[in-house]
């Protein structure tokens, strides 16, 4: 079963953690777990995750609604701009804030930066869901006398719930596993402590025990998310016509809405890119090694594309199974796929160091192992996209194909995958841009002598050469903006043409169903 291969890849770090955490015996584990510090870590991590996720839900759903369902001026532009913060790595944003306002360190700064960098994970799938949902339900509600607000809350929101929940899950896992922002902004959460635990004691047992605790929390969150998901079918089984909904007039609130959109864009996009620009100008005296920049950009794109393709290939079996067969084993495999996503990159990297050097010596510190690390880290992003797009394609077509004598594989190849193709490609694009920004695993597993933009950025800032770092950061944001832009642009165009389009797919699913 190819799905089992994917699951095996995903649980590699868990095996490693079990070995390392077990080394100290039960005594050490209990001792680490009952520390007062551990309690505070759980409290702070969960608090931050809850706060960031809630804020992302409000901002993501709000912007999605404003840019798809209202008469917001320039809403097409706002629609694209709202997705672009996805291209800004959280460590770049964190650095921009802390260097300009040292006072933002701590909870609020971390909250601000993580919210600004991750709300597109909610925004994109919700936009897709809004475009896909049938506006006639809302029209019925309005015609029966409900106000716009009541309609939004009682009709629109329930339709968006699966998409928003899947996006929120990605936000929550990102917040739990991010190291760059909490570390730069000095807010003690799990990942920061796991890192400093490696540094502090060079004893990997306490770090591993904390990481196991993190995995347990993650599994609890993913299980909660899948419970909240509506298990009913959501495919539009023909008949329905996707047509643009009538725009809700904002009236006197238009300036307020524009102000809110501008504020989000200013905080999440303009400020970090603006400070990059400032460094670029200030650093014009610093000599720029163009060869280095180009070679780092090339290898970034190279390994990230490989990462995206391999991750998506592994995600297809899991996603198809999850969408079509809701058995217990399948659900277990699906949850396993999420395990890697919540672990800090350093843990996944060390797990692959451990297994790589023992069982895969020839590819140790070569591209294949690095690509495998990306697959472990980002499998859930792709699984979500595959599952969503397969679930939304009518099962009836597969049944027709089977009844006409095509085998399981032929049906998969000729019916299921082509139907789900755009959604899967969107998932791959999302993985691609996430791989580009990845740092800790890349640092430990890259082929010796190879640099990506993220590792060069790390080198320059480590030497205090912020001006010299700016071109790498700018290039990284630019490159990551390409898949982000394609994701939203393609989506917008499809919506514009959708009057005669009965295709139930939408480009960006991000895990909704």
């Amino acid at each position: 079963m190819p799905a089992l291969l994917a699951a095996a890849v995903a649980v590699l770090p868990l095996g490693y953690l079990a070995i390392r955490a077990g080394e100290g015996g039960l005594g050490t584990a209990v001792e680490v777990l009952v520390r007062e510090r551990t309690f505070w870590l759980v409290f702070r991590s969960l608090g931050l995750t809850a706060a960031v996720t809630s804020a992302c839900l409000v901002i993501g759903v709000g912007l999605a609604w404003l840019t798809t369902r209202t008469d917001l001026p320039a809403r097409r532009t706002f629609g694209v701009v709202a997705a672009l913060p996805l291209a800004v790595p959280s460590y770049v944003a964190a650095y921009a804030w802390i260097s300009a306002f040292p006072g933002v360190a701590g909870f609020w700064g971390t909250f601000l930066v993580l919210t600004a960098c991750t709300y597109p994970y909610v925004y994109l799938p919700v936009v897709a869901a809004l475009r896909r949902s049938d506006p006639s339900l809302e029209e019925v509600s309005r015609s029966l006398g409900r106000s716009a607000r009541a309609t939004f809350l009682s009709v629109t929101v329930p339709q968006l719930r699966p998409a928003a929940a899947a996006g929120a899950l990605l936000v929550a896992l990102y917040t739990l596993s991010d190291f760059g922002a909490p570390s730069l902004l000095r807010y003690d959460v799990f990942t920061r402590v796991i890192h400093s635990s490696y540094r502090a004691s060079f004893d990997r047992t306490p770090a591993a025990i904390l990481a196991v605790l993190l995995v347990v929390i993650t599994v609890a969150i993913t299980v909660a998310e899948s419970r909240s998901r509506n298990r009913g079918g959501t495919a539009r089984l023909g008949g329905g016509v996707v047509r643009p909904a009538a725009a809700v007039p904002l009236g006197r609130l238009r300036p307020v809405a524009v102000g809110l959109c501008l504020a989000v864009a200013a905080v999440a996009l303009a400020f970090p890119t603006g400070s990059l620009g400032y460094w670029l100008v200030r650093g014009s005296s610093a000599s720029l090694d163009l060869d280095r920049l180009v070679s780092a950009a090339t290898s970034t794109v190279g390994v990230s594309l490989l990462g995206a393709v391999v991750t998506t290939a592994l995600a297809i079996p899991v996603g198809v199974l999850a969408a079509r067969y809701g058995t217990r084993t399948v659900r277990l495999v699906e949850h396993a796929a999420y395990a890697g996503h919540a672990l800090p990159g350093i843990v996944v990297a060390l797990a692959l160091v451990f297994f790589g050097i023992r069982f895969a010596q020839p590819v140790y510190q070569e591209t294949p192992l690095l690509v495998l690390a990306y697959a472990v880290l980002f499998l859930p992003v792709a699984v979500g996209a595959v599952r969503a797009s397969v679930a939304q394609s009518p099962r009836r077509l597969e049944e027709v194909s089977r009844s006409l004598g095509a085998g399981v594989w032929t049906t998969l190849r000729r019916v299921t995958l082509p139907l789900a193709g755009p959604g899967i490609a969107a998932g791959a694009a999302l993985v691609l841009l996430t791989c580009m920004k990845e740092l800790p695993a890349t640092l430990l597993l890259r082929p010796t002598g190879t640099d990506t933009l993220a590792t060069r950025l790390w080198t320059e800032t480590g030497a205090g050469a912020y001006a010299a770092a700016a071109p790498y950061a700018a290039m990284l944001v630019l490159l990551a903006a390409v898949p982000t832009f394609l994701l939203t642009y393609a989506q917008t165009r499809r919506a514009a043409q959708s009057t005669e389009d009965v295709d139930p797919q939408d480009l960006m699913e991000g895990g909704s169903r």
Partner: protein
Amino acid sequence: MRRPHLLAPVMAATLLTSLAACSTSESTTGSAPDETAGAAAEEGTLLIYSGRNENLVEPLLEQLEDAVGVDVEVRYASTSELAAQLLEEGDASEADIFFGQDAGALGALAKAGMLAELDESVTGLVPETYRDADGRWVATSGRARVLAYDPEQVPEIEDITEIDQLLEPEYVGAVGYAPSNASFHAFVTALRIERGEDGARQWLEDFAAQDPQAYENNNAVLDAVDGGQVALGLINHYYWFQKVAELGEDGVSAEIHFLDNDDPGALVNVAGAGVLASTDMPEAAAEAITFLLSDDAQQYFADETAEYPVVEGITSSTFELEPLAELDSHQIDLNDLDSLEETLGLLDEVGLT
């Protein structure tokens, strides 16, 4: 029905760029071997794990390649991550040399039995304070903790001789520090070793009550002192020298001040190197360490990174660095800097994070 076929172009682009990536990774393996040195008899590539920043040491390691006469490859990452990676790799590691910027990491690898004992002829080049007692690593350069100060705000700087004076009322809100920085942690560890857990906790609690200003790193602390936002800053000496080198003497209003030799606030930590016990090129590795202690390499540290040379008789031609021997009357065992876990726990307890 319209459906863009994104998958195909993505696949094609992947194939192309992955080919490109393969070819670039192959072209990065070092230059042709040089047959001048004796260690060239050993086959293979000398792999250095460097926890020191690429921008700072790359030119030096290129010289090292020429001097030792074998191919050299360098992996750069942070000192602590590389130490953790080496501990995971164990005996299977292909690394031959670990080059780190914190004695604690070297101590941890030595304790785990991963570093080979170095020959007396190598360790003998360095004073006892700056090498492992069992000869498993040697320091390659020194870095001192200093007080950066704003001369306008602290005209009385010469009266400050110990860190306890920072606890006086006139310095409330006036001291900048970098709580997440490894060299600040090393200072606190030295404080613990010197004064015991309770003594250290007392100092840290009093310090926290002084409303010290936290910054992201040493550079940010120095910038704050230079800009007059704080009067004093706890930093490493070379940040000031590098800033002066970049902006000129007139461009930097901040100055630095050394505390008394026996004060924990004057700790001299080191960057150092050791040979992995699992190396398959022991001779080339030993020669590489010897090179790092050679006059050329020591001069490089003194002139380029403004660090203290650990070999006697080398003076910086660009920076006014006192000889290291005059700084270290009361040095602790640097191996003990690996007890960072307790340090971080203590900092967490008193809320200095």
